C-alpha cells in the first residue's frame, strides 16, 4: 500500500492504563463536601439565600437588595462634602460623561450603510443636498502650487513604504468562495488611507502657508466625536446621537477666517425646497438604538474637557483669593463662546466590507452624516444649552467640511448648519461631490508596486465641479451599437434591452443622428424585427 497514515487512529496513552482508570473512578465517585459559609462572610452579617429557594431571582428579592444598597450608599455620601474643591475635581475627573439613560437614543455610528443613500441622509440631517457648487465659490477657489511628485510620494508612503506588519483579514472571493486564501500580513487599509490623508493635508497646508492663504490650523488625530440633538418631529421622544472617530480633525485658531463664512446667506427662500421622500422606507431604519450615550452635557464635556457642573459647586469664598487675571480667565471659561478655536474640517478613511460592500451612494450618505455630526458637535461644544445653540445658529450658521477616502476616491462634503431641529422653518444645506477619483489602489492583500495616474485637480482645487464628459459617454454608447463586450456574455438573452439603453442614452445626449447614419438605423431596425417570433420563423415547437 503506497500510503499509510502516520498517526494511529487511536493513540495509546496514560488514560488507557488500568491504574488511571481506577483512580479516575475513585475520583468521580468521591462526594464533594457540603458548602460552608466562610467565617468572614458570617461576620459581615449579610443575608444568605438558599440556592434551592424557588423565588431567589424573583423581583421582590432583587428590589429589596437594591433598596438596601441605595441606603448604604446614602449613608456613605452623607459624609461627603460637596463644597470641598478637591473632592469636586476628583469626582469630575473620574466622572463618566457617557452614561446609561432610561430613554434609548437613535445612534449613528457608521457601522450600517444607509439603505436609501443620499436621500435618507438628507432627511436625517434635515438638509437640502446640492451636487453643484455655488458660483461665487467656484470663482474664489484658491489654487496651490504643489508638485505632482509630492502628491505621488504622499500616496506611495501609505500604499507602499509603510512597514506595518499586522495580521490582515483573510481574503474572501465572492465568486470562487470555496478557495481558502492564505493569511497575509501588512498595512491595514484604514491605516494606509490615514497616512495618505495626513500627508495630503500637510502638503496642502504647507503650500497654503507659503502662499499666505492658510494660517493657524491645528490638527487633532483620532478624536472621539459625539454629537447630540433632539427633534420630536422625526425622532419622537428619543434623542439622535452621532458618534464616530475621524482620523484628522482640523481646527482653526482664529474664528474670523474666510473659510468659516457661510456659503448661503438667504436661507429663507432656499429652505422652501422640499426634502426627498423615501416612503415607504423609514429614514430611521438603519439607525441603531442604545441607552449608553453622551447626552448634550456629556457631548459638551467630551469635546471641551470642561463641564458645567464644575462651576455648580464652586465655593465663592475661594474666589476671593484669585487675582484679577484669574477671574477674567474663569469668566472666559464660563462664557458660552469660550472656545476660540473652531472645527474647520475632518478627514477619514473607509474600508470595503468583503462580504457586504457598500455602494457609492451609501458611502456618499455616510460622508454627509459624518459632516453633519461634526457640525452638530461644533454647536454642542460651543454652547452649554440646546436652546441657546438653536438661537445662535439662526444668525451664525456653522460651516463644516468633510473628506472621505474610499478605495482611492474622495467624497467631499460641505454642510451649512442652520438649525438642529427638524421642525424648524430653516433647513440645512449640503454640497456634495461624490467619488472623485484620486488614484487607483491595489486590493488590500497586495502591495502596490507602481502608482498609476493621479488626478491632481482634486488636491489642488478640492472644490472643483467636474462637467459631464459627453464625448466619452458617446464613444462608450456607440461601441455598444456594434458589439457587446465579453463581460456581457451572461446578458445574451437581454441584448435588445442593452440596445434600448444605448440608443435611448444617445438620443438624450442629442448625438443619435450624428453617430448613427440612416443605413445603420435601418440595420438596427431590421435586427430588432429579426428577433420577433412569427409563424414564419420556422419549425418551432416544444414537442
Amino acid at each position, binding site marked *: 500500500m503506497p500510503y499509510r497514515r*502516520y498517526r494511529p487512529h487511536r493513540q495509546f496513552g496514560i488514560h488507557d492504563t488500568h491504574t488511571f482508570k481506577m483512580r479516575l473512578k475513585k475520583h468521580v465517585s468521591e462526594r464533594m463536601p457540603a458548602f460552608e459559609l466562610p467565617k468572614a462572610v458570617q461576620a459581615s452579617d449579610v443575608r444568605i439565600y438558599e440556592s434551592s429557594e424557588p423565588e431567589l431571582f424573583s423581583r421582590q428579592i432583587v428590589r429589596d437588595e437594591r433598596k438596601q444598597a441605595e441606603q448604604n450608599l446614602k449613608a456613605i455620601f452623607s459624609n461627603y462634602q460637596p463644597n470641598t*474643591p*478637591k473632592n*469636586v*475635581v476628583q469626582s*469630575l*475627573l473620574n466622572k463618566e460623561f457617557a452614561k446609561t439613560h432610561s430613554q434609548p437614543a437613535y445612534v449613528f455610528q457608521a457601522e450600517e450603510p444607509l439603505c436609501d443613500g443620499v436621500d435618507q441622509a438628507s432627511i436625517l440631517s434635515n438638509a437640502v443636498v446640492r451636487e453643484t457648487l455655488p458660483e461665487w465659490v467656484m470663482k474664489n477657489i484658491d489654487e496651490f502650487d*504643489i508638485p505632482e511628485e*509630492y502628491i505621488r*510620494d504622499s500616496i506611495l*508612503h501609505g500604499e*507602499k*513604504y*509603510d*512597514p*506595518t506588519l499586522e495580521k490582515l483579514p483573510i481574503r474572501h472571493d465572492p465568486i470562487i468562495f470555496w478557495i481558502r486564501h492564505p493569511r497575509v500580513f501588512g498595512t491595514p487599509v484604514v491605516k494606509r488611507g490615514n*497616512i495618505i490623508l*495626513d*500627508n495630503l493635508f*500637510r*502638503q496642502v*497646508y*504647507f*503650500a497654503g*502657508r*507659503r502662499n*499666505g492663504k492658510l494660517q493657524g*490650523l*491645528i*490638527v*487633532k*488625530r483620532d478624536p472621539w466625536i459625539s454629537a447630540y440633538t433632539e427633534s420630536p418631529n422625526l425622532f419622537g421622544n428619543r434623542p439622535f446621537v452621532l458618534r464616530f472617530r475621524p482620523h484628522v480633525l482640523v481646527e482653526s*485658531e482664529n474664528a474670523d477666517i474666510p473659510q468659516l463664512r457661510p456659503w448661503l446667506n438667504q436661507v429663507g427662500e432656499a429652505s422652501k425646497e422640499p426634502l426627498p421622500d423615501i416612503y415607504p422606507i423609514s429614514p430611521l431604519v438603519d439607525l441603531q438604538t442604545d441607552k449608553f450615550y453622551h447626552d448634550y452635557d456629556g457631548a459638551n464635556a467630551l469635546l471641551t*474637557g470642561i463641564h458645567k457642573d*464644575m462651576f455648580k459647586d*464652586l465655593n465663592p469664598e*475661594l474666589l476671593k*483669593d*484669585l*487675582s484679577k*487675571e*484669574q477671574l477674567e*480667565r*474663569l469668566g472666559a*471659561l464660563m462664557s458660552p463662546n469660550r472656545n476660540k*478655536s473652531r472645527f474647520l474640517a475632518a478627514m477619514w478613511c473607509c474600508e470595503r466590507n468583503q462580504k457586504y460592500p457598500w455602494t457609492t451612494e451609501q458611502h456618499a450618505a455616510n460622508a454627509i452624516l459624518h459632516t453633519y455630526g461634526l457640525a452638530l458637535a461644533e454647536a454642542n461644544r460651543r454652547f452649554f444649552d440646546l436652546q441657546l445653540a438653536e438661537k445662535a445658529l439662526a444668525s451664525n450658521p456653522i460651516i463644516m467640511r468633510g473628506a472621505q477616502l474610499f478605495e482611492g476616491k474622495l467624497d467631499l462634503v460641505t454642510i451649512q448648519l442652520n438649525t438642529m431641529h427638524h421642525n424648524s422653518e430653516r433647513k440645512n444645506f449640503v454640497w456634495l461631490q461624490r467619488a472623485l477619483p484620486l488614484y487607483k489602489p491595489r486590493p488590500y492583500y497586495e*502591495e502596490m508596486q507602481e502608482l498609476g495616474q493621479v488626478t491632481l485637480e482634486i488636491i489642488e482645487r478640492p472644490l472643483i465641479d467636474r462637467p459631464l464628459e459627453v464625448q466619452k459617454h458617446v464613444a462608450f454608447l456607440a461601441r455598444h451599437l456594434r458589439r457587446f463586450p465579453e463581460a456581457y456574455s451572461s446578458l445574451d438573452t437581454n441584448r435588445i434591452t442593452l440596445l434600448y439603453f444605448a440608443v435611448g442614452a444617445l438620443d438624450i445626449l442629442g448625438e443619435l443622428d450624428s453617430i448613427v447614419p440612416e443605413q445603420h438605423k435601418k440595420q438596427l431596425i431590421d435586427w430588432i424585427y429579426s428577433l420577433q417570433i412569427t409563424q414564419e420563423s420556422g419549425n418551432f415547437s416544444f414537442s
Partner: protein
Amino acid sequence: MRSCPSTALLSNRLARRLYLNSAATCSNSNITVESSIEAKTDKPTPKPKRPNATPETAYKPPYYANKSHIPTKGHHWTHEEFHNEGIRDGSGARLHDYFEMRKLVERAPTIQDKIDLVNPYERPWSRFEKTWHRTTHPPLSSPRKAWCLGELPLSYTCLDFYKYITKTRIVEKKLDGFYKSLNFPTEHLESIMGEGPHFLNNIFYGLVGADEKVQDIFTSLFDRALDTAAHNQKRLSEFRVSYNVPSEAFWIRSGFNFLYDEEDIVTGKVEKNYRYLSKFTGDDRRKLGELAFCLRDKHWVQVRTSAPSPILFPLDDTEATQPLFDDSVDVEKDVLFQPMVYNLPVDADPLWQCPGYFVESGETKKHVQFAIKSILPLRKRFEDYYCKYSAPEYPLPLQILLKPEFRGDFVDLVKAQAIASLFGTLCAEAHTNGFTQYNDVDRPFVSQLMLTDGYCCYFAIAQLNTLAFNIQCEGFDNPRTNVVYFEGPIPMVMEGENEGGKSRGDNWSESRANLPFLPLLLRQEDLKPNPLPLLRMLQMILWKGQ
C-alpha cells in the same frame, strides 16, 4: 606478564606535559626547579600585538583545523605538537570565515540580499522535518534566537551593558553647540505651548495612565513646531513624516566567550569547556561567544529625509576611537554578564532591519533625521520602584522628579534607552544603505532623538562609526566606537514668579492642593511653559549641520 611502555614513548609524553604545564621551554634541558618557580612568579610579559588581518593574509586553515575551537591539549600522541598561532587560539579559522563572509556580502546583488545573508534568524523546524526526523539523522539543533531589547529597558542598571552590546559611548553635554546657526524667537514658541488645548492642564491631570494622551500632546506640539517654519522652509514638504512607526534592528555582539567558562571544583582552575557545555541561547552554533541581539522599538513621530544627515566628525578623527569605558570600569567583572541578568527576553520571531521602512519597499527617504519616543511607562515603573511607599501623591510633584538622587538613577535609564533607540535606528539605516557587520560603514551615520515622559524631555544626537564588532579575536582590532551626545532632563514647564517676585518653591504642592478645581488657572500663575523643548525639537528637525 604485562609489558611496560617503551622509553621513547614515555619521554614523548613527559615532554608534552612539561611543555604544557611549565613556562620553561623544552629545549632547555638543564633547567632547575628554582628557575622554573621564579619563572612562574614573574609577571607574564605582554604578547606583542598581532597586526590586523586582511583578506589577503587570512589564509584558509587546513582541513583538520577548520574549527574555531581546536583542543590545544594533546589527547593522543598522534596530535600535532606545535600548532601555529592561528590554530592555537582558533583565530585563523574565524578570520578566514569572516573574510569569506565579507566576500559573499559584497557579491550579493541587492541590499535586501545582503541583509538576508547576515540575518542570524533561523526558522523553526517544520512539522515535516520534525515528523520524519530519525535517530540516524543529525540532531535538530534549536534555532538561533536573539536577545530582545524591547521598547524600554527592564533592568535598572543596564546602562553599561547597553553601551557594551552596542559599542556606543555616551557623552552628557549641552547640545547648543550643534545648533548654533538655528535660533528662533522663543516668545512665539512659548505662546504655542501655552495656547495649546489646555496644555498645562493635560500635563498635570490628563496623563495618569494615558500614554495616548501624552502622544496626542506631543504630536500636536510637533505639528505646531513644523507650522512655525512652514512659511519659509519649502523642504519641510519634502520630509517624510510618519506617526507610530516601528524601528527594528538586529546585530551580533562578540565577547561572550566567558559563558563557556567552567571551574574545576578540585583545582579551582577556570577553563573553557566548548565541548560539553551546551550552546548558549543566541550564540552561533559554533559556540563563538557572539550573541544575537535585536531591538523592537516604536517611535511616536519620525522624520526622514532623502539626503543623509550631516556628520559630527569624520571617521579618522580621534573622537571616533575614544575608549568605550573609563579605566575605572572593569568590563569583565562589572558589565559582562549573561543577558538574562539584565532581564532581556529571548525573541524567536523573524528579525528585520527596519528604520521606519523596509528596504525592499523602494523607499526614497532613507535617512532618519529626527524621532520622538515615549518613556512614560518607564517613568511610571521607576516611580513605583523608587518611591512607591514614600510618595503620598501620584503623579509625583516636579520637585521630586528633579531631585538629584531620583534624577541620577532615572536619567541613567533614559541614557540606556537613548543608546538602544539611536543605535537601533542607525544600525538599520546603515544596513538599508548596503553596510553590514561584515562590510563596515565607510561613512558615519547620524540621527537625533527626543525622549519624553510628559514632564521632562531628553535630547540625544548619535553618530554611528562602526558596526564591525561581531568578531573578537587576535588579528582583528577595531578601535572605533559609536557615540551619543545626551542632554536632559529639560522640564516642559518652569516655575514662574508670583507677584512678590519670588518663586513659589516649596509651597507649590500646597497651593496645588488648595485649588485643584481650576488647574489651568493655577498653573498659569505658578508655572509657565518652558519653550526650550520646542526650540530644541525645531532645531533638530531643521538641522543642516554645524
